[in-house]
């Protein structure tokens, strides 16, 4: 403990709740404002827990250069429940404050727009519902509004997009989500069945099943003091990279589909199938569900599987390089991607973009590098960073990351062959440390996933907090389509490919 906050350089970590320094709201406010001053620092968790005295706010801030995480907390009494907002000083916190406002009714005084993040059934103000939400509007004869969703023409998740357009040009996009709210956090906190918790976590967002499972598993392992071995760490990393490759290739296919480039679409779709079938060969599920469990795994890597993974990723990597070479040199495709949906690095920093969205805007933000977890502690990953921030950058980043992931898988499998195999089975009858706060972060394909939990004096989870990268990055999409043509919205949307259910929880 240094100064007046808890500073830890591990991921995941666990601390006693008493050790998390509790400050008055004013010094909490000033301290966070001071810490978040700079591009290499970002807030990874900021949420409230209700107890008899009021709402306890916990905030964790990660420093990418010093590789540590600082945690501090404060207590806000229920009455009057009005505090100074941090958003004006640190814009990335806008969404956390909106969420706290929605869940506990705390009013952040000078917050620019306390728009509800989602309209869950378990919110504070039950009278405000999605149906009577007042959308942002501009009064003008020349402008028109276009509302899309929540039911879409394609087989995609529900979300409402409200455009304010001048002819074909989009002036403003408001994104309203929350249709997928399932009460994940509540289920996780209430459930005492550890297998159930693991299964819920791998279903937070279907395309990030492995990433969310790892975040949950390592959180439980650190809270429960369960020891894991390097062979398991490597296996988890391989699973995570396979997921990254599969989704990146699938997104490239979807991007081609959106601009009606059939060749790129069908080739990438076929390549993605190769990868997810390999995951299925390994663990019986194409999305890696069931692969990751706290303490161990039911599907230890076998020599045969390891060989197959190397062969398949090698071939797919090469063929993907060939087809993307073709895709990103075709003039008709480039015309659709270049300079479309640009997000500047200032914008990305302002909204606190993470993961892919940040790395395409010249911000090197990658948990594998800044706060390494699992086997990345022994294996260096240097983040791929591009800086044009347009659809093309997001496409190219996928190409480069697939290339990198194929390399990582080859290296990790080589090391796996040399490691001693413990082949531990999952642990379900663990006992969690009482009165503790724990936080775990994983770099999924979309970006940083953060799971955090607080236990009571009996060692049962009283609060479980999940944060998907989409939580921040939806705002990037809203900014990307400003002043673009409305017909370019789908391709912008696809280039981010954000999660609805990961956001809605």
């Amino acid at each position, binding site marked *: 403990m240094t100064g007046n906050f808890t500073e830890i350089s591990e991921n995941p970590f666990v601390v006693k709740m008493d050790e998390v320094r509790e400050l008055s709201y004013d010094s909490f406010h000033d301290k966070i404002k001071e810490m978040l001053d700079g591009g290499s620092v970002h807030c990874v968790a900021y949420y409230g827990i209700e107890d008899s005295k009021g709402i306890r706010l916990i905030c964790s801030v990660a420093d990418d250069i010093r590789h540590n995480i600082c945690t501090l907390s404060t207590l806000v009494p229920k009455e009057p429940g009005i505090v100074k907002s941090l958003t004006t000083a640190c814009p990335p916190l806008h969404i956390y404050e909106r969420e706290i406002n929605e869940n506990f009714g705390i009013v952040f005084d000078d917050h620019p727009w306390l728009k509800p993040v989602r309209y869950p059934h378990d919110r504070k103000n039950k009278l405000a519902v999605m149906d009577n939400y007042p959308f942002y509007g501009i009064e003008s004869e020349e402008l028109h509004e276009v509302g*899309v969703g929540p039911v879409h023409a394609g087989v995609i998740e529900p979300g409402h997009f409200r455009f304010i357009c001048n002819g074909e040009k989009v002036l403003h996009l408001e994104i309203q989500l929350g249709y997928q709210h399932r009460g994940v956090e509540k289920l996780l906190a209430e459930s005492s069945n550890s297998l159930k918790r693991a299964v819920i976590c791998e279903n937070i967002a279907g395309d990030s099943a492995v990433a969310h499972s790892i975040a949950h598993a390592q959180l439980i392992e650190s809270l429960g003091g369960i020891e894991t071995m390097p062979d398991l760490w490597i296996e988890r990393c391989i699973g995570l990279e396979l997921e990254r490759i599969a989704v990146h290739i699938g997104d490239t296919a979807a991007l081609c589909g959106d601009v009606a480039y059939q*060749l790129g679409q*069908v080739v990438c779709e076929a390549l993605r199938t190769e990868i997810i079938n390999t995951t299925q060969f390994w663990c019986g599920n194409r999305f890696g569900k069931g692969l990751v469990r706290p303490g161990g795994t039911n599907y230890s890597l076998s020599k045969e599987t390891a060989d197959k993974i190397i062969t398949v990723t090698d071939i797919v990597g090469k063929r993907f390089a060939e087809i993307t070479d073709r895709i990103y040199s075709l003039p008709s*495709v480039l015309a659709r991607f270049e300079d479309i949906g640009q997000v500047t690095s200032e914008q990305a920093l302002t909204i606190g973009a993470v993961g892919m969205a940040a790395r395409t805007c010249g911000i090197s933000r990658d948990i594998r590098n800044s706060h390494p977890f699992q086997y990345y502690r022994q294996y260096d990953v240097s983040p791929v960073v591009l800086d044009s921030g347009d659809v093309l950058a997001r496409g190219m980043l996928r190409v480069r990351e697939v290339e990198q992931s194929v390399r990582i898988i080859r290296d990790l499998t080589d090391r796996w062959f040399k490691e001693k195999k413990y082949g531990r089975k999952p642990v379900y009858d663990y006992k969690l440390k009482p009165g503790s706060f724990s936080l775990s972060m994983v770099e999924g394909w979309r970006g940083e996933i953060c799971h955090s939990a607080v236990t009571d004096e009996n060692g049962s989870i009283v609060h479980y907090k999940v944060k998907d990268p989409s939580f921040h990055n939806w705002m990037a999409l809203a900014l990307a389509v400003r002043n673009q043509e409305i017909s370019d919205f789908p391709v912008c949307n696809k280039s981010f490919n954000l999660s609805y259910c990961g956001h809605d929880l």
Partner: protein
Amino acid sequence: MAEYYLIMIGFALIIITALFFPGIIIRAKSIASGRKGPGILQPLRDLAVLLKKGSVFSSTTGVIFQIASVITLCSIICAALVIPFANRGALVSFEGDFVFFSYMLALGKFFAIISALDTGSSFEGMGANREAFFSMLIEPAFFIILASFAMVTGFTSFSDIFSYFLVTGNHFILIYSIILIYLLIQVALTENSRVPVDDPKTHLELTMIHEVMILDNSGFDKALIHLGTWLKFTVYGALIYNIIAPVQMNYFVQAGLFLAVQALFAVTVGLIESFRARNKMNRNPKFILTVSAIAMIAFVIILIYMNKFNQ
């Protein structure tokens, strides 16, 4: 009477090829992308399913919406009537029938557009707006083509034009014909809302032009609209055939040539859709104006051929 019977063949061929046209496009696309894909008859089966269904009309729509799809189909059939076959004239032919042809197609489009506006949906309004804009831009290109036809032959009826027009007449006419065929394909792609101007396959309402206009149509009406789109393709294909068709040739060979031209046309459309992406929406006007510019080149070639510059 025998003559009329033979002239009917041309009209019948346009209708029959229209039924197989989309199937061929889809086959070409499937083969180009290495997929098994549906059979040539699949669009017809889908059409049959739609024809069996009733139509559902939204309560916000009026009578325009209900009659528009029939009028659109009829106008395209009317346009097809003036297209000649095997140099024996068309079912209907009169001085200036190419203007009739062009405005019958425009009438169909007009009804499609007002029926889209009739639904009151923000998507359909957007699509109607785009369709009207792009059709307006492509019209000069089409009229320049027609005007140059009239000039080179001295006639203003399709039947007369094509009974006089011979592709191998001389070098100028040959070059002119090649440009003409290219132009007709581009005009057909634009008028039928295909790649690169529009993407008929997309599910993304915000990027659609033609498809978004028919979002509210269902069942029987939707079948008529599909049929109209297919017919429009073969109408343009029939024009291309007429440019190529030699004057003297027996009916069977002419019919064979007709089918071959239509099939090749469908395959070309399929291949274009396989190997390129569609335009960005604001590039479409440029693309269409380029087509008009090329039409001007064709026109200039005719002017040179007819020695109009020396006087």
